[in-house]
Protein backbone atom coordinates (compact mmCIF):
# COMPACT_ATOMS: atom_id res chain seq x y z
CA UNK A 1 0.00 0.00 0.00
CA UNK A 2 1.42 3.39 -0.95
CA UNK A 3 1.67 6.01 1.81
CA UNK A 4 3.20 8.98 -0.02
CA UNK A 5 2.19 10.99 -3.06
CA UNK A 6 4.19 10.80 -6.30
CA UNK A 7 5.28 14.37 -5.53
CA UNK A 8 6.67 13.43 -2.14
CA UNK A 9 8.40 10.39 -3.64
CA UNK A 10 9.83 12.68 -6.33
CA UNK A 11 8.62 10.24 -8.94
CA UNK A 12 9.16 11.22 -12.58
CA UNK A 13 5.39 10.84 -13.03
CA UNK A 14 4.76 13.64 -10.53
CA UNK A 15 5.50 15.94 -13.46
CA UNK A 16 2.52 16.48 -15.73
CA UNK A 17 4.86 16.95 -18.68
CA UNK A 18 6.16 13.41 -18.24
CA UNK A 19 2.60 12.04 -18.10
CA UNK A 20 1.65 13.89 -21.28
CA UNK A 21 4.75 12.54 -23.00
CA UNK A 22 3.78 8.98 -22.14
CA UNK A 23 0.23 9.59 -23.35
CA UNK A 24 1.50 10.93 -26.69
CA UNK A 25 4.32 8.49 -27.39
CA UNK A 26 4.47 4.72 -27.91
CA UNK A 27 1.29 3.16 -29.24
CA UNK A 28 -0.18 6.57 -30.10
CA UNK A 29 2.93 7.81 -31.86
CA UNK A 30 3.54 4.72 -33.95
CA UNK A 31 -0.05 4.64 -35.13
CA UNK A 32 -0.99 1.41 -33.37
CA UNK A 33 -3.86 3.34 -31.78
CA UNK A 34 -5.47 6.54 -33.06
CA UNK A 35 -4.94 9.73 -31.08
CA UNK A 36 -8.04 11.08 -29.38
CA UNK A 37 -8.02 14.03 -31.74
CA UNK A 38 -8.11 11.76 -34.81
CA UNK A 39 -10.72 9.51 -33.24
CA UNK A 40 -13.21 12.29 -32.55
CA UNK A 41 -12.44 13.79 -35.96
CA UNK A 42 -13.67 10.49 -37.53
CA UNK A 43 -17.17 11.29 -36.29
CA UNK A 44 -16.86 15.00 -37.06
CA UNK A 45 -16.58 15.97 -33.41
CA UNK A 46 -13.26 17.81 -33.51
CA UNK A 47 -12.74 20.34 -32.09
CA UNK A 48 -14.74 19.82 -28.93
CA UNK A 49 -16.18 23.14 -27.85
CA UNK A 50 -17.61 24.37 -24.57
CA UNK A 51 -21.37 24.79 -24.35
CA UNK A 52 -23.26 26.78 -21.75
CA UNK A 53 -21.73 26.38 -18.30
CA UNK A 54 -23.69 24.06 -16.02
CA UNK A 55 -21.15 22.93 -13.43
CA UNK A 56 -18.61 25.03 -11.61
CA UNK A 57 -16.17 22.65 -9.94
CA UNK A 58 -13.73 24.08 -7.42
CA UNK A 59 -10.76 22.13 -6.13
CA UNK A 60 -10.02 23.64 -2.71
CA UNK A 61 -6.74 21.77 -2.23
CA UNK A 62 -4.79 18.59 -2.79
CA UNK A 63 -4.36 17.72 0.89
CA UNK A 64 -6.11 14.50 1.87
CA UNK A 65 -6.14 12.09 4.81
CA UNK A 66 -5.99 9.17 2.36
CA UNK A 67 -3.45 8.08 -0.25
CA UNK A 68 -5.59 6.08 -2.72
CA UNK A 69 -3.67 4.03 -5.23
CA UNK A 70 -5.70 5.31 -8.21
CA UNK A 71 -5.88 9.01 -7.26
CA UNK A 72 -5.72 11.30 -10.29
CA UNK A 73 -4.98 14.27 -8.05
CA UNK A 74 -1.96 12.61 -6.41
CA UNK A 75 -3.54 13.81 -3.17
CA UNK A 76 -2.34 12.92 0.29
CA UNK A 77 -1.37 14.22 3.72
CA UNK A 78 1.94 15.42 2.27
CA UNK A 79 0.33 17.75 -0.32
CA UNK A 80 0.32 21.36 0.88
CA UNK A 81 -1.52 23.04 -2.01
CA UNK A 82 -4.52 24.63 -0.32
CA UNK A 83 -6.88 27.32 -1.64
CA UNK A 84 -6.48 30.56 0.31
CA UNK A 85 -9.38 32.59 1.69
CA UNK A 86 -8.54 35.30 -0.83
CA UNK A 87 -8.99 32.90 -3.77
CA UNK A 88 -12.15 31.56 -2.14
CA UNK A 89 -13.46 35.13 -2.01
CA UNK A 90 -12.75 35.48 -5.74
CA UNK A 91 -14.63 32.21 -6.30
CA UNK A 92 -17.57 33.54 -4.26
CA UNK A 93 -17.74 36.64 -6.46
CA UNK A 94 -18.03 34.30 -9.45
CA UNK A 95 -20.55 31.97 -7.77
CA UNK A 96 -22.84 34.96 -7.14
CA UNK A 97 -23.07 35.65 -10.87
CA UNK A 98 -22.70 32.27 -12.52
CA UNK A 99 -25.35 30.70 -14.70
CA UNK A 100 -24.25 27.26 -13.51
CA UNK A 101 -26.86 25.14 -11.73
CA UNK A 102 -24.26 23.05 -9.88
CA UNK A 103 -21.44 24.03 -7.57
CA UNK A 104 -19.08 21.11 -6.95
CA UNK A 105 -16.38 21.27 -4.26
CA UNK A 106 -13.62 18.72 -4.48
CA UNK A 107 -10.04 18.08 -3.41
CA UNK A 108 -8.12 16.23 -1.80
CA UNK A 109 -10.40 16.14 1.15
CA UNK A 110 -12.09 19.53 0.84
CA UNK A 111 -12.98 19.47 4.53
CA UNK A 112 -9.26 19.72 5.41
CA UNK A 113 -9.04 23.24 4.01
CA UNK A 114 -9.12 25.45 7.15
CA UNK A 115 -11.57 27.82 5.45
CA UNK A 116 -13.83 25.06 4.14
CA UNK A 117 -16.76 25.73 6.49
CA UNK A 118 -16.68 29.48 5.98
CA UNK A 119 -16.61 28.94 2.23
CA UNK A 120 -19.59 26.55 2.33
CA UNK A 121 -21.59 28.95 4.53
CA UNK A 122 -20.93 31.85 2.18
CA UNK A 123 -21.48 29.88 -1.03
CA UNK A 124 -24.73 28.38 0.32
CA UNK A 125 -26.18 31.90 0.71
CA UNK A 126 -26.18 32.28 -3.09
CA UNK A 127 -28.74 29.49 -3.37
CA UNK A 128 -27.29 27.48 -6.26
CA UNK A 129 -29.64 24.62 -7.12
CA UNK A 130 -27.23 21.74 -6.50
CA UNK A 131 -24.33 22.26 -4.08
CA UNK A 132 -22.05 19.22 -4.05
CA UNK A 133 -19.24 18.39 -1.63
CA UNK A 134 -17.10 15.40 -2.61
CA UNK A 135 -16.33 13.80 0.72
CA UNK A 136 -14.10 10.76 1.02
CA UNK A 137 -16.18 9.59 4.04
CA UNK A 138 -13.22 8.64 6.24
CA UNK A 139 -12.54 12.31 6.97
CA UNK A 140 -15.78 12.31 8.96
CA UNK A 141 -14.20 9.71 11.28
CA UNK A 142 -10.60 10.97 11.09
CA UNK A 143 -10.74 13.39 13.99
CA UNK A 144 -13.31 14.58 16.55
CA UNK A 145 -13.39 18.00 14.91
CA UNK A 146 -14.97 16.39 11.84
CA UNK A 147 -17.59 14.27 13.63
CA UNK A 148 -20.27 16.94 13.16
CA UNK A 149 -19.79 17.13 9.38
CA UNK A 150 -23.04 15.24 8.63
CA UNK A 151 -24.97 17.85 10.66
CA UNK A 152 -23.00 20.65 9.00
CA UNK A 153 -23.77 19.27 5.54
CA UNK A 154 -27.43 18.95 6.49
CA UNK A 155 -27.61 22.54 7.73
CA UNK A 156 -26.54 23.85 4.32
CA UNK A 157 -28.42 21.23 2.32
CA UNK A 158 -25.19 19.95 0.79
CA UNK A 159 -25.39 17.17 -1.76
CA UNK A 160 -22.81 14.66 -0.51
CA UNK A 161 -20.96 12.59 -3.12
CA UNK A 162 -18.62 9.97 -1.70
CA UNK A 163 -16.23 7.36 -3.05
CA UNK A 164 -16.81 3.68 -2.46
CA UNK A 165 -15.00 1.29 -4.80
CA UNK A 166 -16.75 -1.84 -3.55
CA UNK A 167 -19.16 -3.21 -1.00
CA UNK A 168 -16.52 -5.52 0.44
CA UNK A 169 -13.65 -4.64 2.79
CA UNK A 170 -10.88 -6.36 0.80
CA UNK A 171 -11.39 -4.55 -2.49
CA UNK A 172 -12.02 -1.18 -0.82
CA UNK A 173 -8.98 -1.22 1.45
CA UNK A 174 -6.71 -2.40 -1.34
CA UNK A 175 -7.53 0.71 -3.36
CA UNK A 176 -8.03 3.27 -0.62
CA UNK A 177 -5.93 2.10 2.33
CA UNK A 178 -6.20 -0.15 5.39
CA UNK A 179 -9.21 0.59 7.55
CA UNK A 180 -10.91 2.77 4.93
CA UNK A 181 -13.83 0.39 4.48
CA UNK A 182 -14.76 0.25 8.17
CA UNK A 183 -14.40 4.02 8.61
CA UNK A 184 -16.47 4.60 5.44
CA UNK A 185 -19.24 2.33 6.72
CA UNK A 186 -19.30 4.23 10.04
CA UNK A 187 -19.43 7.54 8.18
CA UNK A 188 -22.26 6.33 5.92
CA UNK A 189 -24.22 5.26 9.01
CA UNK A 190 -23.71 8.75 10.49
CA UNK A 191 -24.93 10.33 7.25
CA UNK A 192 -27.96 8.01 7.15
CA UNK A 193 -28.76 8.81 10.77
CA UNK A 194 -29.23 12.52 9.99
CA UNK A 195 -31.35 11.66 6.94
CA UNK A 196 -28.78 11.52 4.13
CA UNK A 197 -29.43 8.90 1.48
CA UNK A 198 -32.76 7.77 2.87
CA UNK A 199 -35.58 7.01 0.42
CA UNK A 200 -37.55 10.19 -0.37
CA UNK A 201 -35.08 12.32 1.62
CA UNK A 202 -34.03 15.63 0.05
CA UNK A 203 -30.60 15.17 1.61
CA UNK A 204 -28.83 13.65 -1.36
CA UNK A 205 -26.14 11.04 -0.77
CA UNK A 206 -24.58 9.53 -3.89
CA UNK A 207 -21.68 7.13 -4.12
CA UNK A 208 -18.88 7.06 -6.66
CA UNK A 209 -17.55 3.75 -7.90
CA UNK A 210 -14.07 3.58 -9.44
CA UNK A 211 -12.82 0.18 -10.63
CA UNK A 212 -10.14 -1.15 -8.30
CA UNK A 213 -7.72 -2.13 -11.05
CA UNK A 214 -6.95 -2.04 -14.76
CA UNK A 215 -10.47 -2.59 -16.00
CA UNK A 216 -13.47 -0.48 -16.98
CA UNK A 217 -16.65 -0.13 -14.95
CA UNK A 218 -19.63 -2.28 -15.90
CA UNK A 219 -23.11 -0.91 -16.44
CA UNK A 220 -23.83 1.79 -13.84
CA UNK A 221 -27.41 0.68 -13.15
CA UNK A 222 -26.38 -2.96 -12.52
CA UNK A 223 -23.57 -1.89 -10.21
CA UNK A 224 -25.93 0.41 -8.33
CA UNK A 225 -28.34 -2.48 -7.80
CA UNK A 226 -25.54 -4.68 -6.41
CA UNK A 227 -24.19 -1.89 -4.18
CA UNK A 228 -27.64 -1.09 -2.82
CA UNK A 229 -28.46 -4.69 -2.04
CA UNK A 230 -25.11 -5.44 -0.38
CA UNK A 231 -24.90 -2.25 1.70
CA UNK A 232 -28.52 -2.65 2.87
CA UNK A 233 -28.23 -6.36 3.66
CA UNK A 234 -24.81 -6.22 5.29
CA UNK A 235 -24.86 -2.84 7.07
CA UNK A 236 -28.39 -1.42 6.78
CA UNK A 237 -26.96 1.51 4.80
CA UNK A 238 -28.89 3.40 2.13
CA UNK A 239 -27.88 5.87 -0.55
CA UNK A 240 -29.46 7.43 -3.62
CA UNK A 241 -27.41 7.01 -6.82
CA UNK A 242 -24.20 5.33 -7.81
CA UNK A 243 -21.90 7.12 -10.26
CA UNK A 244 -19.63 4.69 -12.11
CA UNK A 245 -16.48 6.58 -13.07
CA UNK A 246 -13.72 5.25 -15.32
CA UNK A 247 -10.17 5.67 -14.01
CA UNK A 248 -8.29 8.00 -16.33
CA UNK A 249 -4.70 7.06 -17.19
CA UNK A 250 -3.00 9.94 -15.40
CA UNK A 251 -1.06 10.50 -12.19
CA UNK A 252 -1.11 7.60 -9.69
CA UNK A 253 -3.37 5.43 -11.83
CA UNK A 254 -0.98 5.87 -14.75
CA UNK A 255 1.89 4.99 -12.40
CA UNK A 256 0.02 1.84 -11.38
CA UNK A 257 -0.77 0.92 -15.01
CA UNK A 258 2.87 1.20 -16.01
CA UNK A 259 4.25 -0.59 -12.94
CA UNK A 260 1.79 -3.47 -13.36
CA UNK A 261 2.45 -3.66 -17.12
CA UNK A 262 -1.20 -2.95 -17.86
CA UNK A 263 -0.78 0.41 -19.60
CA UNK A 264 -1.03 -0.71 -23.22
CA UNK A 265 -3.88 -3.17 -22.62
CA UNK A 266 -5.78 -0.51 -20.69
CA UNK A 267 -5.37 2.04 -23.47
CA UNK A 268 -6.52 -0.58 -25.97
CA UNK A 269 -9.57 -1.26 -23.81
CA UNK A 270 -10.39 2.46 -23.64
CA UNK A 271 -9.99 2.95 -27.38
CA UNK A 272 -12.00 -0.18 -28.20
CA UNK A 273 -14.81 0.99 -25.94
CA UNK A 274 -14.81 4.45 -27.57
CA UNK A 275 -18.39 5.64 -27.91
CA UNK A 276 -19.04 8.66 -30.16
CA UNK A 277 -22.39 9.22 -28.43
CA UNK A 278 -20.58 9.75 -25.12
CA UNK A 279 -18.46 12.46 -26.77
CA UNK A 280 -21.59 14.58 -27.18
CA UNK A 281 -22.03 14.75 -23.39
CA UNK A 282 -18.49 14.82 -22.03
CA UNK A 283 -18.36 16.96 -18.92
CA UNK A 284 -15.64 19.32 -20.14
CA UNK A 285 -18.22 20.87 -22.47
CA UNK A 286 -20.41 22.06 -19.58
CA UNK A 287 -17.90 22.38 -16.72
CA UNK A 288 -15.20 24.73 -15.53
CA UNK A 289 -12.66 23.38 -13.08
CA UNK A 290 -10.96 25.88 -10.76
CA UNK A 291 -7.67 24.91 -9.16
CA UNK A 292 -6.56 25.66 -5.58
CA UNK A 293 -4.63 28.68 -6.89
CA UNK A 294 -7.54 29.99 -8.96
CA UNK A 295 -6.59 28.89 -12.48
CA UNK A 296 -9.24 27.58 -14.86
CA UNK A 297 -9.33 24.22 -16.61
CA UNK A 298 -11.77 22.24 -18.76
CA UNK A 299 -11.91 19.47 -16.13
CA UNK A 300 -10.21 18.23 -12.96
CA UNK A 301 -8.06 15.85 -15.05
CA UNK A 302 -6.74 18.67 -17.24
CA UNK A 303 -6.06 20.58 -14.04
CA UNK A 304 -3.81 17.78 -12.82
CA UNK A 305 -2.09 17.62 -16.23
CA UNK A 306 -1.62 21.41 -16.06
CA UNK A 307 -3.47 21.93 -19.34
CA UNK A 308 -5.20 25.31 -18.81
CA UNK A 309 -8.33 26.46 -20.66
CA UNK A 310 -7.79 27.63 -24.22
CA UNK A 311 -9.23 31.09 -23.61
CA UNK A 312 -8.17 34.67 -22.93
CA UNK A 313 -9.61 34.12 -19.47
CA UNK A 314 -7.18 32.03 -17.46
CA UNK A 315 -7.85 32.85 -13.81
CA UNK A 316 -10.85 33.14 -11.51
CA UNK A 317 -9.96 36.81 -10.99
CA UNK A 318 -10.62 37.48 -14.71
CA UNK A 319 -13.57 35.09 -14.92
CA UNK A 320 -16.00 35.74 -17.75
CA UNK A 321 -18.54 33.07 -18.52
CA UNK A 322 -19.45 34.48 -21.94
CA UNK A 323 -15.84 34.51 -23.06
CA UNK A 324 -15.30 30.96 -21.83
CA UNK A 325 -18.32 29.63 -23.72
CA UNK A 326 -17.41 28.29 -27.13
CA UNK A 327 -13.73 27.78 -26.25
CA UNK A 328 -11.99 24.77 -27.76
CA UNK A 329 -11.49 22.01 -25.20
CA UNK A 330 -7.88 20.95 -24.60
CA UNK A 331 -7.52 17.23 -25.25
CA UNK A 332 -5.02 14.38 -25.07
CA UNK A 333 -5.22 10.60 -24.96
CA UNK A 334 -6.46 10.57 -21.33
CA UNK A 335 -9.77 11.87 -22.73
CA UNK A 336 -10.54 8.34 -23.96
CA UNK A 337 -11.40 7.62 -20.31
CA UNK A 338 -14.48 9.85 -20.53
CA UNK A 339 -15.72 8.41 -23.84
CA UNK A 340 -15.41 4.68 -23.14
CA UNK A 341 -18.57 2.59 -23.01
CA UNK A 342 -21.38 4.53 -21.39
CA UNK A 343 -19.01 7.46 -20.93
CA UNK A 344 -17.72 8.83 -17.67
CA UNK A 345 -17.93 12.12 -15.81
CA UNK A 346 -17.89 13.37 -12.24
CA UNK A 347 -21.66 12.72 -12.41
CA UNK A 348 -21.15 9.15 -13.64
CA UNK A 349 -22.19 7.69 -17.00
CA UNK A 350 -23.24 10.14 -19.69
CA UNK A 351 -24.52 7.99 -22.55
Amino acid at each position, binding site marked *: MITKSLHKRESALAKSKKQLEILSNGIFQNGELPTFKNKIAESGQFPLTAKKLEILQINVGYMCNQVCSHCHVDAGPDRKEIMTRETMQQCLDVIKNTGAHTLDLTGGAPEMNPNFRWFVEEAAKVGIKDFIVRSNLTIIRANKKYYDLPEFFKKYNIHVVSSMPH*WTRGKTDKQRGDGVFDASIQALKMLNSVGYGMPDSDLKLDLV*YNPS*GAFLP*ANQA*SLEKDFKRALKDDFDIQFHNLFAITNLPISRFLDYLIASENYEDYMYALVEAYNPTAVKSVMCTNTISVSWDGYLYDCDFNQMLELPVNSKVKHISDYNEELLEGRNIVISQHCYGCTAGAGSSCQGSVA
Partner: protein
Amino acid sequence: MQKTYYDPADLKKFGKISEWNQELGDKFFEYYGKVFEEGSLSAREKSLIALAVAHTIQCPYCIDAYTGDGLQRGITKEEMMEALHVAAAIRGGASLVHGVQMMNKVNKLEM
Protein backbone atom coordinates in the same frame (compact mmCIF):
# COMPACT_ATOMS: atom_id res chain seq x y z
CA MET B 1 3.90 -18.93 -38.27
CA GLN B 2 3.62 -18.17 -34.57
CA LYS B 3 5.42 -20.54 -32.22
CA THR B 4 2.54 -21.02 -29.80
CA TYR B 5 -1.06 -22.03 -30.39
CA TYR B 6 -2.49 -19.19 -28.31
CA ASP B 7 -1.69 -15.48 -28.53
CA PRO B 8 -3.54 -13.15 -26.08
CA ALA B 9 -3.65 -10.50 -28.82
CA ASP B 10 -5.85 -12.83 -30.92
CA LEU B 11 -8.76 -12.32 -28.53
CA LYS B 12 -9.08 -8.74 -29.79
CA LYS B 13 -9.42 -10.14 -33.32
CA PHE B 14 -12.36 -12.40 -32.49
CA GLY B 15 -14.69 -10.22 -34.56
CA LYS B 16 -12.60 -10.90 -37.67
CA ILE B 17 -14.07 -14.40 -38.01
CA SER B 18 -16.99 -12.68 -39.74
CA GLU B 19 -14.70 -11.59 -42.57
CA TRP B 20 -14.71 -15.09 -44.04
CA ASN B 21 -18.43 -15.63 -43.54
CA GLN B 22 -20.24 -12.41 -42.81
CA GLU B 23 -23.72 -13.86 -42.53
CA LEU B 24 -22.94 -16.61 -40.05
CA GLY B 25 -20.47 -14.41 -38.16
CA ASP B 26 -23.08 -11.69 -37.76
CA LYS B 27 -25.70 -14.18 -36.65
CA PHE B 28 -23.31 -15.66 -34.10
CA PHE B 29 -22.33 -12.32 -32.56
CA GLU B 30 -25.93 -11.16 -32.47
CA TYR B 31 -26.88 -14.37 -30.68
CA TYR B 32 -23.87 -14.08 -28.37
CA GLY B 33 -24.78 -10.52 -27.38
CA LYS B 34 -28.40 -11.50 -26.77
CA VAL B 35 -27.44 -14.47 -24.59
CA PHE B 36 -25.54 -12.24 -22.16
CA GLU B 37 -28.25 -9.60 -21.76
CA GLU B 38 -30.17 -9.31 -18.49
CA GLY B 39 -32.95 -11.88 -18.57
CA SER B 40 -34.42 -14.33 -16.08
CA LEU B 41 -30.79 -14.65 -15.05
CA SER B 42 -28.87 -11.47 -14.29
CA ALA B 43 -25.94 -10.49 -16.50
CA ARG B 44 -23.81 -11.00 -13.38
CA GLU B 45 -24.97 -14.62 -12.96
CA LYS B 46 -24.36 -15.26 -16.65
CA SER B 47 -20.84 -13.88 -16.33
CA LEU B 48 -20.09 -16.36 -13.52
CA ILE B 49 -21.54 -19.24 -15.54
CA ALA B 50 -19.38 -18.18 -18.48
CA LEU B 51 -16.30 -18.10 -16.25
CA ALA B 52 -16.98 -21.60 -14.93
CA VAL B 53 -17.63 -22.96 -18.43
CA ALA B 54 -14.48 -21.22 -19.70
CA HIS B 55 -12.46 -23.24 -17.20
CA THR B 56 -14.32 -26.43 -18.03
CA ILE B 57 -13.54 -26.11 -21.72
CA GLN B 58 -10.12 -24.64 -20.82
CA CYS B 59 -10.37 -21.78 -23.26
CA PRO B 60 -7.63 -19.24 -22.43
CA TYR B 61 -9.37 -16.49 -24.38
CA CYS B 62 -12.61 -17.04 -22.50
CA ILE B 63 -10.79 -17.18 -19.15
CA ASP B 64 -9.16 -13.80 -19.86
CA ALA B 65 -12.41 -12.34 -21.12
CA TYR B 66 -14.66 -13.48 -18.29
CA THR B 67 -12.17 -12.77 -15.51
CA GLY B 68 -12.05 -9.20 -16.80
CA ASP B 69 -15.82 -9.12 -17.24
CA GLY B 70 -16.30 -10.35 -13.66
CA LEU B 71 -14.01 -7.67 -12.25
CA GLN B 72 -15.93 -5.02 -14.17
CA ARG B 73 -19.15 -6.26 -12.65
CA GLY B 74 -17.74 -6.10 -9.13
CA ILE B 75 -17.62 -9.90 -8.81
CA THR B 76 -15.12 -10.76 -6.08
CA LYS B 77 -12.27 -13.23 -6.43
CA GLU B 78 -13.95 -15.40 -3.79
CA GLU B 79 -17.10 -15.61 -5.93
CA MET B 80 -15.01 -16.41 -9.01
CA MET B 81 -13.19 -19.23 -7.23
CA GLU B 82 -16.46 -20.67 -5.93
CA ALA B 83 -17.80 -20.72 -9.48
CA LEU B 84 -14.69 -22.64 -10.56
CA HIS B 85 -15.25 -25.19 -7.84
CA VAL B 86 -18.74 -25.76 -9.21
CA ALA B 87 -17.13 -26.45 -12.59
CA ALA B 88 -14.52 -28.69 -10.98
CA ALA B 89 -17.13 -30.56 -8.95
CA ILE B 90 -19.24 -31.28 -12.02
CA ARG B 91 -16.14 -32.26 -13.97
CA GLY B 92 -14.83 -34.50 -11.20
CA GLY B 93 -18.33 -35.84 -10.57
CA ALA B 94 -18.72 -36.66 -14.24
CA SER B 95 -15.68 -38.93 -14.01
CA LEU B 96 -16.73 -40.51 -10.77
CA VAL B 97 -20.36 -41.11 -11.69
CA HIS B 98 -19.06 -43.34 -14.49
CA GLY B 99 -17.68 -45.41 -11.62
CA VAL B 100 -21.18 -46.87 -11.41
CA GLN B 101 -20.79 -48.16 -14.96
CA MET B 102 -17.43 -49.64 -13.96
CA MET B 103 -18.96 -51.23 -10.89
CA ASN B 104 -21.85 -52.63 -12.94
CA LYS B 105 -19.39 -54.14 -15.38
CA VAL B 106 -17.20 -55.62 -12.65
CA ASN B 107 -20.23 -57.04 -10.86
CA LYS B 108 -21.47 -58.59 -14.10
CA LEU B 109 -18.15 -60.15 -15.03
CA GLU B 110 -16.84 -61.30 -11.67
CA MET B 111 -17.98 -64.52 -10.13
